[in-house]
């Protein structure tokens, strides 16, 4: 709203002016919300129960596993990082209520990795973390719009955008499936809109596009989708939806023995989650997948090994999968941001730290991050893999070849990005 921007400017000017009047009288700095001498409190909302929770509900445990490790090794300048987790069941209005609780009752310093495009958008418009100055770190959605620093001034993405993913998928299709009939299953909201924009930029023409309304995914719906893909004689079917949509589709496809060349978007492509729904691993075999971080089975990768060791000890019996790796990676980046925010971190210094140093934060991704004073864009690309007979995603040809691009008209290019080495003991410098 125009009036609000103007007001903000006027207020800032007035504050500066008053300080200018009494430059010698520097006020004592008030303690930041959520920060004490012993603790830094962060908050997270995501689906912990309900149909959308599968897989995602491991993220808090993963993040806590890293924070526990961090705290056992001195925390952030002696402060322990605690994470308050609220279940929003993937319902936007509930995310609003739970985020309000985090900010007003739990008094967290920052929000960490809230999940879901609709939820983050609902919180942005109803809770107004931007207006409150509350950092929203590393949102768990690839909706490109959240990188708009004017609209979401305290929000930082981490996942590559859905537009980037679709562009990279499109490039792969053109290089490997030229002349084939392509089908697309997508969520009929901003998630899908981003994907459609990316495919359009990539110049992909679909034989059939099948939208599904968020929340409508089911086995019965999947049978209808398959009918449409069969009717269009799709050779390659892209599943660009959430895990429950992917699982419903693959489960029914297995029953109907429908087996096109599958291509899975990263959001719904976690094999562990898919298999938990009863989908046979064999259905995934040779499907093509995309990921910004290394394969979760790649124990030669120092980050994967490090995070896997911590998680296995912290949550014994729980599989180390993509959701866990991303959750720990996000916590690791948050720790570096807090460390970089200074001896007495504030919300403002935390945001400034990401602006100035975020692009250099060590993390497991094989693609660069684009944080800067003018960009809230996180990771910028993917490597392409295929699922093994056991359902594990591994790089095509056995070597990671990563591609990077932007959310605009920029080209898809192979990246020469050199990932920072793991800091000593996996702790922020």
């Amino acid at each position, binding site marked *: *709203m125009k*009036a*609000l921007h*103007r*007001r903000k400017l*006027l*207020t800032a*000017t*007035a504050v500066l*002016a*008053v300080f200018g*009047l009494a430059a010698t009288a520097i006020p004592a700095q008030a303690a930041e919300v959520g920060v004490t001498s012993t603790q830094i409190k962060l908050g997270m909302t995501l689906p912990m129960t*309900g*149909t*959308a929770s599968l897989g995602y509900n491991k993220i808090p445990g993963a993040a806590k596993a890293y924070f526990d490790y961090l705290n056992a090794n001195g925390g952030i300048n002696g402060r322990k990082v605690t994470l308050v987790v609220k279940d929003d*069941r*993937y*319902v*936007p*209005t*509930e995310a609003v*209520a*739970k985020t*309000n*609780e985090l*900010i*007003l009752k739990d008094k967290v310093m920052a929000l960490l990795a809230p999940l879901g*495009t*609709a939820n983050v*958008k*609902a919180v942005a*418009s109803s*809770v*107004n973390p931007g*207006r*409150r100055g*509350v950092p929203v770190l590393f949102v768990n959605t690839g909706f490109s719009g959240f990188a708009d620093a004017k609209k979401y001034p305290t929000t930082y993405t981490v996942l590559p955008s859905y537009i980037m993913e679709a562009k990279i998928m499109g490039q792969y299709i053109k290089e490997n499936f030229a002349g084939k009939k392509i089908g697309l299953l997508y969520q*009929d*909201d*901003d998630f*899908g*809109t981003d994907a459609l924009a990316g495919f359009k930029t990539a110049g992909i023409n679909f034989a059939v596009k099948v*939208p*599904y*309304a*968020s*929340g*409508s995914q089911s086995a019965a719906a999947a049978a209808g989708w398959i009918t449409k893909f069969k009717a269009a004689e799709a050779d390659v079917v892209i599943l660009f939806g959430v895990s429950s949509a992917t699982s419903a589709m693959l489960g029914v496809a297995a029953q109907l023995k429908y087996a096109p060349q599958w291509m899975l978007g990263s959001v719904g492509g976690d094999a562990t989650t898919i298999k938990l729904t009863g989908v046979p691993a064999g259905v995934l075999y040779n499907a093509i997948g995309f990921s910004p971080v290394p394969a979760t089975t790649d124990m030669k990768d120092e980050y994967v090994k490090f995070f896997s060791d911590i998680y296995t000890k912290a949550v014994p019996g729980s599989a180390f999968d993509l959701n866990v790796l991303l959750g720990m990676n996000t916590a690791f980046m948050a720790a570096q941001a807090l460390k970089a925010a200074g001896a007495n971190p504030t919300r403002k210094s935390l945001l400034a730290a990401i602006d100035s140093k975020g692009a250099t934060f060590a993390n497991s991704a094989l693609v660069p991050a684009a944080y800067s004073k003018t960009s809230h864009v996180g990771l910028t690309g993917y490597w392409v893999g295929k699922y093994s007979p056991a359902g594990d995603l591994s790089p095509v040809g056995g070597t990671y070849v990563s591609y990077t691009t932007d959310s605009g008209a920029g080209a898809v290019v192979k990246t020469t990005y050199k990932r920072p080495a793991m800091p000593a003991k996996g702790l922020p410098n």
Partner: protein
Amino acid sequence: MKKVRILSLLSVTALVTTVLVTAPTVANAAPMCDGKSPIQSCVGVTSDGAPYAMQVPANFNGTVALYSHGYRYNVDIPAGIPLIGGYKITNTPEPVPGGNAEVAKYFFSQGIAIVGSGFARQGWNPDSAIKTNVELIDTFKKQFPKTTKVVAWGSSLGGVITQGLAEKHPELVSAVAPMCMADNVSAELTMAGDFLWGIKVLFDPTIKAGNYSAGAAGVAESYGDLVKVFTVMGKLQASLTTGAWPDTSSATGKALAAAGIPSRSALLLLGLMAGLPTQSAHFDSISGPDGALKLTFPLAISPVLAILENGTNAAALAVLATQDVENQTGGAIFDNTKTDYSARVDAERVIFNAALSGNTAIDAMLGALSAANPGAPRAAGNAAAVAKMKALHQNTGKINVPTVLMVGVADPITPAGASQRLVDLYAEQYAAEKAAARKAYQASRDYKTPTNKLLMLWNTTPSNYTKFDAAGSPITSTAAAQGTNHCNFTSAQLVLVAKSLVQASSTGKLPSGGALYTAVRKAGNLSIDKGISVPWLKAYGDN
């Protein structure tokens, strides 16, 4: 799911405030006082014919609280009309909100008198009501010369009148409290008009939805609209789970139905276009019953039920206020020929995507409602009538005296955005006052921080409040949740406002700091969090 009982729950009393005192009919005579103690009661009639009532405690300390009641229909409603039938025009005075005894008791305990009129004209009346209040203040002061301070407060349209009084006559009041304040007439009736227009063009094209005939014929047309709108809402309620469209639907509506779009999605879209809250008295858009609908209910059903409950509540006022203002201005005042409804729902379409049945359905509905579709003809206002409407009293939002605002965040009649507008405008005003103070400092070297003149009390909704019975059906027989319905305040909340007014009038400063936090907490379901921000009424975004 069992049939949800919504229509019987409508809070007609929320629109038509409780009357309190019988007054004489002789205009402009001196008040007639009973001389009783400890409370002396006086009644009279202002020069414009507004009956008033005064109640003055024996320990009167010189402060009087002037209350302005909210909108009352300015036509009788035949008994046969559902929900609101049987209403008779009344101008009985109301010196405290709804005749609330606890509020009156508080004032009397402080030695404060109360006064209020029933206004001479009902319906949309700020122009005349502000004049009535000015005269009433003068009359009170003459009757009780000890009077030193006047605090003014009001609810709903009475909030507009109260704010208007403070804007036009700040010299008369030392503090004011517009509660559940309506917005200016054009913004309010745009909201009403948008919703009615949508109901008409999709669900029953025989609804007039404005542009009523002059005089009695127009009143009769509005009665007809009320029946039709309530009938449509009943049909939509009955087909909530099936998604079937009312048999009265337009060709445009039937085309959307044929495309597989459920009627509930269309109803929700209309509510979002108009700016109705998506939380209502009994539906929080969060909770779901145990079982299969645990997630589906809040995602796809509850927001629609909230619009149904809120929309039905608002529809009566929408029809009757439109007819009233058209009668005052001489023609159609709703004009959506240039309204971009797609822009209106840009923020909400992703949040309620599931209930709206996805982007494809949303785009189809918005396409059907676009100005390019002759099957959904836009309403054109009468230019002269629109100009007259804009010439009716409009609050600028200027805060002249200590002001307390209180509103439910999900008030369906007077959305919280009306209060938010004042909050935002005051932020600019305060920044300008600070700048002026800084400039003055350059000359005087004496910096005086401007005094804050605004306290915003948000009446918030509970985290979740929809209740379900053992069969999983929503329970709608309970009292409306806090933060919902129109002017749904507790006595404790009203007393807090009264106390704040009293403090501000005696000290010139609004409550603040720890004492305020404690008082707010004790009053319950209120927040003074400055981070709360709700959208302005949709009409402001159209410009």
